[in-house]
């Protein structure tokens, strides 16, 4: 299964996401000794809800990262031809695809229901006497090992049993290791372990059953829906984080400068964000994406593989979302900076002749970090939701790149079929809902811990 003959491919979005991971790690590493920050984080993690939601988010991030390690497989050289040159597959594969064990390569002709053995639609085929008949076709990759269709449910039960046994063993190993390390910890780790065990069992079950059936059926093009939903994770997670990454420097720089220098700088910054926020957001985003599309169409030779074109569009979307959404954070940071720069210690620093750069770096910036953090977590879920809407409008992710928005978009017409094709929608719904719910609940906890004024949220008055 592990072919070493492969050429790594670094898409722009991959590079950016690994950069983001490094930035975040250094950020938290540098903050680890700050007692106030530690106390706030420990408030977040001492609740079971915090542990559970954080673990779920980490699972999603982990899958997204695995799906960001891309490579192109080496093609076997044609028989009889001796050559030293290696040719690489035009299709870009990721480590996640390897771990899913070919789940995405088992195509059917068209729709099939979850765990079905036969196709969803009738098609013309020949029976054993060579006559043309119209019937439901047997699926290419579902239940081929069964002696008779009646064996399906006992077989599924057997597969589930084996998968659960393996999953529990793997979970015991993972959790046991953590238990040894974190035994004495005061945090409710058991909540996290429970989630980990469930996720591991689920994934083992999904991969092993997918070997013989389509757990969530297939879509119109015959692709496994469960596979598509899993591929949507990378798109959702990356969009949510990269857009914020683009937005942060602009919002922070402008906001801090406006609040600190006041005067004409403040006027200019205020003018900028009022102008930007007075444009209906969706129109601005749509117009920008369309323009980028025109640019791609005019310069087709900049992109070697189809995947790179989709990736360029994806990054452009992240940039556009970031560039159009900095105004609210900028406003918050400006207000906070205005307040802080009136405080005694900043005035004292001025009196001592400390340079602007030092005051900004040592006194102002550290005190607006909590706003940045809260915005980062709060915006994440709304960006994931926005992706679906944008893809529906037609200015979102490229259809060749799996995303929940594109799946929902397809599902719209599928529900009006008779009987309705509900599984595409269900797959997108489940994976999206879990991520957004976890992110929303987690962001509530982070806000309660970091924003002293939002105390009314959970304290119950």
């Amino acid at each position, binding site marked *: 299964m592990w072919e070493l003959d492969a050429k790594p491919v670094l898409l722009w979005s991959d590079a950016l996401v690994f950069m983001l991971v490094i930035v975040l790690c250094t950020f938290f590493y540098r903050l680890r000794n700050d007692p106030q920050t530690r106390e706030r984080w420990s408030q977040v993690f001492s609740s079971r809800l915090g542990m559970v939601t954080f673990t779920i988010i980490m699972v999603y991030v982990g899958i997204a990262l695995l799906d960001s390690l891309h490579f192109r497989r080496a093609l076997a050289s044609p028989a009889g031809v001796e050559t030293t040159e290696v040719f690489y597959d035009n299709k870009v594969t990721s480590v996640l695809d390897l771990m899913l064990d070919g789940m995405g390569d088992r195509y059917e002709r068209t729709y099939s229901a979850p765990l079905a053995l036969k196709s969803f639609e009738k098609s013309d085929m020949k029976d054993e006497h060579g006559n043309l008949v119209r019937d439901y076709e047997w699926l290419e990759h579902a239940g081929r090992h069964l002696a008779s269709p009646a064996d399906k449910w006992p077989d599924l039960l057997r597969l589930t049993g084996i998968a659960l046994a393996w999953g529990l063993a793997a979970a015991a190993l993972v959790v046991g290791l953590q238990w040894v390390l974190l035994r004495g910890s005061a945090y409710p780790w058991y909540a996290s372990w429970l989630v980990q065990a469930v996720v591991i069992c689920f994934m083992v079950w999904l991969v092993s059953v997918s070997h013989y059936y389509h757990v969530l059926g297939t879509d119109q093009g015959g692709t496994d829906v469960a596979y598509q939903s899993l591929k949507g994770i990378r798109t959702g997670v990356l969009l949510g984080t990269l857009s914020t990454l683009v937005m942060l420097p602009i919002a922070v720089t402008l906001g801090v400068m406006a609040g600190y220098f006041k005067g004409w700088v403040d006027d200019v910054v205020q003018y900028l964000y009022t102008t930007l926020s007075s444009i209906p957001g969706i129109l601005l985003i749509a117009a920008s994406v369309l323009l980028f599309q025109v640019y791609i169409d005019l310069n087709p030779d900049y992109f070697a593989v189809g995947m790179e074109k989709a990736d360029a569009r994806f990054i452009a979307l992240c940039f556009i979302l970031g560039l159009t959404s900095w105004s609210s954070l900028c406003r918050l940071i400006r207000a906070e900076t205005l307040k802080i720069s009136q405080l005694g210690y900043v005035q004292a620093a001025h009196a001592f002749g400390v340079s602007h750069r030092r005051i900004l770096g040592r006194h102002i910036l550290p005190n607006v970090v909590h706003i940045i953090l809260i915005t980062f977590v709060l915006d994440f879920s709304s960006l994931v939701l926005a992706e679906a*809407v944008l893809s529906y409008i037609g200015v979102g992710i490229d259809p060749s790149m799996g995303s929940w928005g594109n799946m929902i978009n397809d599902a719209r017409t599928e529900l009006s079929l008779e009987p309705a094709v509900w599984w595409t929608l269900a797959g997108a719904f489940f994976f999206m809902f879990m991520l957004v719910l976890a992110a929303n609940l987690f962001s509530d906890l982070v806000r309660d811990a970091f924003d002293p004024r939002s105390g009314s949220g959970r304290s*119950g008055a």
Partner: protein
Amino acid sequence: MLAYIIRRLLYAIPILVGVNLLTFTLFFVVNSPDDMAASQLGDKYVTPAAIENWKRKNGYDKPLFLNDSATGLATLTDTIFFTKSVRLFAFDFGRSESGRDITTDVSTRMWPSLAVALPSFALGIWVNICVALMVVMFRGTSLDRWAVFVFVALMSISYLFYIIGGQYLVAKQWMLVPISGFDPDFKPWKFLILPVLVSVLSGIGSGARWYRTLFLEEAGQDYVRTARAKGASEISILFRHILPNALIPILTGVVVLIPSLFMGSLLIESFFGIPGLGSYMLDAIRSQDFAIVRSMVFIGSILYIFGLILTDISYTWADPRVRLS
């Protein structure tokens, strides 16, 4: 007050100029007048002469932002940007790229948009406030905590699921209302029930959660304690004391949206086939009609600025202590 409003209106002008500048730059960075002419003329007839002719006819034969050949003020005014923007300020939106008059389109499509947006808006606020008040009544209990969880869960469902789910269940399975469409003359309410219901339902999560926080903030104030001490019942505290005092933050969030109701909802209108401004925009985006997108951006910005002014005025009405100057 009048002086204040006039000043605010004057402030709006540079902002609108900025909005125009932004849309123009965005548009012309990748799509020069030459490209526009070529795509309008079609592949067959593209000759340099034809392009020049088209540009002259449609007023694109000038420089974009700065005219070096002119003198004085004309360096700024004798440009594509200036001539096209001035017409926007006079609410003359010109013709769309398919040749229809945008001003007429907008004024006829405004009403179906309002017919959906206004009831959704009013009903939405009413429902959200009621739900939030009910939850606040049980503050501190586990019912409150579960309610918050349900709100967050409702928030985490994409808007698209509400629409698709609503259409599937109410219209297709139960066949209570038509799936989509609009008829201004024949029982329009039949077509409006489902869109309004869907927008109200999808808003409950975030709306009620927000109102709950506002009410809880007020519930911690001293005057509430005083009211309780003098023996007022919980119900009367909620409605007589907390609700009126929470009105200011509610107004901030709500009034600014009222003018934008004219713009309609992109998704609702396109899913339910309502011929309003929302679906107009969506069609424009999909057919890459920039004349329409530009006009709609302009109208949207005006309505937003108008909403901000309206918010300030509503403060003086809700809180006698606020004076505009």
